[in-house]
């Protein structure tokens, strides 16, 4: 399995580099970045000064290498809006967003695994159809709309949960639901399909022939084999959740990376914006790598080759 990991690692590094190039070039989209930073209506001397300070007058590849070097050393530049170094700012918020992401993932799995197993065991019955209907409905609801609905019900009407902020655990309940529910249908379908396939396998018949109770057959023997693709998907979905947190965090004013991203984009805080994109992409690459490794490890045929 070692060789497999090394190969995936090499690929991950290549992708991370490619992504860093894109993040770097993102800034150049608006035209002259010096003007963008100096602001509208700035005098040409100011623009020149900005250009020199940030090194925009050097050739592009040189700028890239310099920027990459500084970034790898942890120097993300300074936030134009907050006027503090960008790196500590970004990493401080990362914790909140990771927590939200993991909670949402856990919520999605807690919702989808039981439903997926039920749908598979009672395949083609009304239970199955109900689960699939829920899945389709879940995927049709826009997450920002659902978030607003949650606020209406739980904050305004019932007064159980706070609307915004990030101080207590109650502040995380609605964001977790609003972010996580969208991922549940995909998991549910995957589990259902996997279970249906696995339940037809010979070793399930063997397990039943040994007199194992139905619950043991389903959860120990079947689910263990059906869950393998779910682990791979979970790692990937975590990446999506982290990216999609922008909308949810902004609605709930949850003080995480997504909210910071929104602020940096609205206030044209380029160093912060650029580095958030880079950071999330690298996290994503790492998660994909982790998912590949987990996939291999879960299959004894690869692990103990």
């Amino acid at each position, binding site marked *: 399995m070692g060789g497999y990991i090394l190969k995936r690692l090499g690929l991950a590094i290549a992708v991370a580099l490619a992504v860093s190039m894109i993040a770097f070039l993102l800034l150049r989209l608006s035209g002259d970045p010096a003007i963008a930073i100096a602001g509208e209506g700035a005098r040409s001397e100011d623009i020149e000064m900005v250009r020199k300070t940030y090194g925009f007058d050097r050739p592009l590849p040189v700028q890239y290498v310099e920027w990459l070097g500084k970034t790898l050393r942890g120097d993300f530049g300074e936030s134009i809006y907050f006027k503090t170094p960008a790196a500590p700012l970004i990493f401080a918020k990362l914790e909140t967003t990771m927590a939200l992401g993991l909670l949402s993932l856990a919520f999605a799995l807690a919702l989808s695994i039981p439903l997926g197993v039920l749908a598979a065991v009672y395949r083609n019955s009304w239970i199955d159809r109900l689960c699939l209907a829920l899945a389709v409905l879940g995927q049709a609801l826009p997450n920002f709309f659902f978030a607003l609905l949650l606020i209406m019900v739980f904050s305004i009407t019932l007064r159980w949960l706070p609307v915004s902020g990030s101080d207590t655990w109650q502040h995380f309940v609605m964001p977790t639901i609003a972010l996580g529910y969208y991922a549940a249908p995909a998991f549910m379908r995957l589990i259902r399909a996997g279970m249906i396939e696995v339940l037809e*396998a*010979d*070793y399930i*018949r*063997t*397990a*039943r*022939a*040994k*007199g*194992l*109770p139905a619950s*043991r057959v389903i959860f120990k*023997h079947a689910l*263990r*084999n059906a869950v393998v693709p779910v682990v791979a998907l979970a790692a990937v979905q975590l990446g999506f959740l982290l990216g999609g947190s922008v909308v949810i965090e902004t609605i709930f004013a949850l003080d995480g990376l997504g909210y910071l991203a929104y602020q940096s984009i609205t206030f044209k805080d380029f160093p912060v914006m650029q580095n958030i994109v880079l950071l999330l992409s690298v996290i994503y690459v790492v998660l994909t790598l982790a998912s590949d490794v987990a996939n291999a490890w*879960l*299959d*004894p*045929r690869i692990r*103990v080759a």
Partner: protein
Amino acid sequence: MSAVLKPDAADAVLDVEGLSVDIATPSGPLRAVRDVSFQVGRGETLCIVGESGCGKSITSLAIMSLLPVAARRRATRLALLGEDLLAAAPRRVNALRGNRMAMIFQEPMTALNPAYTIGNQLMESYLLHRGGSTDKARERAIELLGKVGIASAAERLRQYPHQLSGGLRQRVMIAMALMCGPELLIADEPSTALDVTIQAQILRLLADLQKDLGIAMVLITHDLGVVARIAHRVAVMYAGEIVEEGTAERLFASPRHPYTRGLISCIPVPGRTKRGGRLGTIAGVVPSLVGEIRGCGFRDRCAHALAACESAAPLRSSGEHQWRCIHVELPE
């Protein structure tokens, strides 16, 4: 075929009478098993022989209550060691499976769960049915792996199925079936999927284990060679019915049913069959088993068929030898 009352019928390990299985299909019920009866006693091997699709596997699944959802089982009597399996609650059936009655299947390559070690899967049923510590279960597993002829058993326990060859996996399956000391072992074509040399080993192993442990064994096969090697009694199945049943010697010496005759004549015997001569065949195909079936199922392929075969194929017997045919004595 109603079971002939043998002197020790009351002690029969497995008592099957009037077993029928119908499978729901879009074009009507498929009568996969029709009024099958037999008994198996301690230390006895009953071989159920027949071609693919004759219903022999479904019979074994019906006994184990492992039928697919679309199948319906009916029987006059289905008893294991005198206990009625038909009326038994699902929990009771689970308590008996893997414990008092065990089954091994045809495909050893896919019969084991790839995600767990051999040891885990071996000890599982023992821990479930017998309780006790994992140490005791491990001891038992090692003992049985030794019995089935697997060397360095302790190491094997830690291995995963994919690390074993087909023959080894089948031995593990046999060991797994014997973990709780069952009185009945059903083996559905246990050697078919294996290499020819391994086949003989597995069959030898099963015969030895039976002698050693005194279990009742039902062995399902399509291969008459297997039957000749290992069976005490034989039941020949065709189109869902048992068409002939008797001891192995009687059956091979004087087969009464045209189908059995046809099967035996298909086997080339070295020395007796002339080189370049024609092998026996049975012309025709198995009839459709959907809907109502009347009379003898073999009549379309039988060289000795009469008009009366369309309505009945009466049960004949001669001592412990039974068969279904309009003829008492077949013309040569």
